[in-house]
């Protein structure tokens, strides 16, 4: 099965690193994975995106066309990408950063990802890793063990513990959201 994931927000949120970590975790699980990203003017400020494809078979076309899983971490990204999601796909929205999500955009999960990051680590800079925890809990893309291993290996030296805390906080928030149908539409 081929699953397409698009992580979008603004430049500086660390979404490309999140994409690399997700792809590496998928590789640890024995899957094929490709990570691509947008370069150029849109990589700084404005809408920025990282994309990951995970598959059991060799991946032919490496670009995402219609994501099954979409993370929206800015208003600009929401405007640009909300409607690209595959029908029935999962849309995870940082509800602290995005106010309005088009109602036709898949199954929407509104979770205050950045707030969760600040609560867990005291910093918004780990929001990308908290988002990974949320995305993976919602979409079940990779094993939690592989995800933790990839996070620990890829984040800057000395920050593994904080980032793992952010990851777990994101996972917990998503599970809670699922069990209480927390703001789920």
């Amino acid at each position, binding site marked *: 099965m081929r699953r397409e994931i698009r992580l979008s927000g603004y430049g500086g949120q660390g979404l490309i690193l999140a994409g*690399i970590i997700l*792809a*590496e975790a998928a*590789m640890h699980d024995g899957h*094929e*994975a*490709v*990570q*691509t*990203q947008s*370069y*150029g003017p849109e990589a700084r400020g404005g809408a920025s995106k990282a994309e990951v494809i995970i598959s059991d078979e060799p*991946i*032919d*076309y*490496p*670009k995402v*066309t219609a994501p099954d899983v979409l993370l929206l971490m800015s208003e600009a990204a929401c405007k640009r990408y909300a409607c690209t999601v595959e029908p029935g796909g999962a849309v995870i929205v940082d509800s602290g950063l995005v106010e309005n999500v088009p109602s036709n955009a898949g199954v929407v999960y509104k979770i205050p990802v950045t707030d969760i990051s600040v609560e867990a680590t005291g910093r918004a800079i780990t929001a990308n890793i908290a988002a990974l925890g949320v995305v993976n809990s919602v979409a079940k893309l990779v094993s939690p063990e592989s995800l933790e291993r990839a996070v620990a290996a890829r984040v800057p030296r000395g920050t593994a513990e904080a980032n793992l805390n952010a990851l777990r906080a994101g996972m917990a928030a998503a599970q809670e959201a699922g069990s209480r149908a927390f703001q789920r539409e």
Partner: protein
Amino acid sequence: MAGKCDVRARLLQGNESCAEAALLAGVRFFAGYPITPSSEIAEILSARLPQLGGKFIQMEDEIASMAAVIGASLAGMKAMTATSGPGFSLKQENLGFASFTEVPCVIVNVQRTGPSTGLPTSPGQGDLMQARWGTHGDHPVVALYPSSVAETFDLTVKAVNIAETLRVPVILLMDEVVAHMRERVIVPCADEIEIAWRPRPTVAPSDYLPYDAGPDGVPAMADFGTGYRWHVTGLYHDITGFPTSAPAKVDHLVRRLEGKIANHRRDITFTWDEHMDDAKVAVVACGIVARSARRAVRLARGKGIAAGVFQPKTIWPFPYEQIAEIAARVDRIIVPEMNMGQLIGEVQRAACGKCEVIGHFRVDGEPITPEEILARLEEV
């Protein structure tokens, strides 16, 4: 994880894969002038080469970079550079010198949309012909073209080996998409890959004739500084290395240079294909477009269309024989490429009217999608 080598899967970026493969193949000298979308190759090698006792130098421009690579190679090092279209244009003069004087080297060109400064961060495939004919005069070159990060690793090793064994500049053409994406690569151990070196002289320095080639057309090459003194010139030269304008010697040299590639054609032609056995329509594509073609053909097969895909990994020398054989048994060949039609010209030459050849050209800086190719496959 015991043992001298830890064979494992790694998630590598295309440019990272190229740099790591070059190191494994024995490259110990890099000179360059960093340029998007190839910059990571220089960045990584600037960190890694000194760790391995190699040399990295950022020169004042691409012309000087290419000259430094030639100098290092003449002194006995495996040497490479990396650039994009604008820099590749600047390197052409010295590339011709390397080709004519038979100095092994690898030139990576991560293509962008051209001409001129073009679109620095967007993919394009406009340098296929430049890789073959960018420098003046009849000259031998080899060009390889990967479609994935794993192929980048494999073809970089092959590029270094071919450069050494045939004493020829080898161009690794890459697409921006492949250069910047990350995929799994099984990184081999040093003792698991075949490493080649240029033939070196077995005679005494006093008996050394630097351009006296044996039957395979590749003369032995002595390292500068080892007591073998020889003359390297971009003028026509005889077996002593000194200039000549004697018609027979001039003719002999240009034909030997052409012949040394032709003689080794089979060893350096790499291709990939899928569903070609019973195909009635073939897609011929290279680089990232081969990945789109692969997907399109799989989708077409699902719709009952007898489609197949053929990917030349070696662009120069072009696999004319294989394309001719395909043209003889299919009704049509579709050639999608991110330029106004370069690969298609060679496909048409090979097909020689035996089947219809249709181009699909995209030049807006975006990659060709599988759906575009599928639409062409459905037009019958």
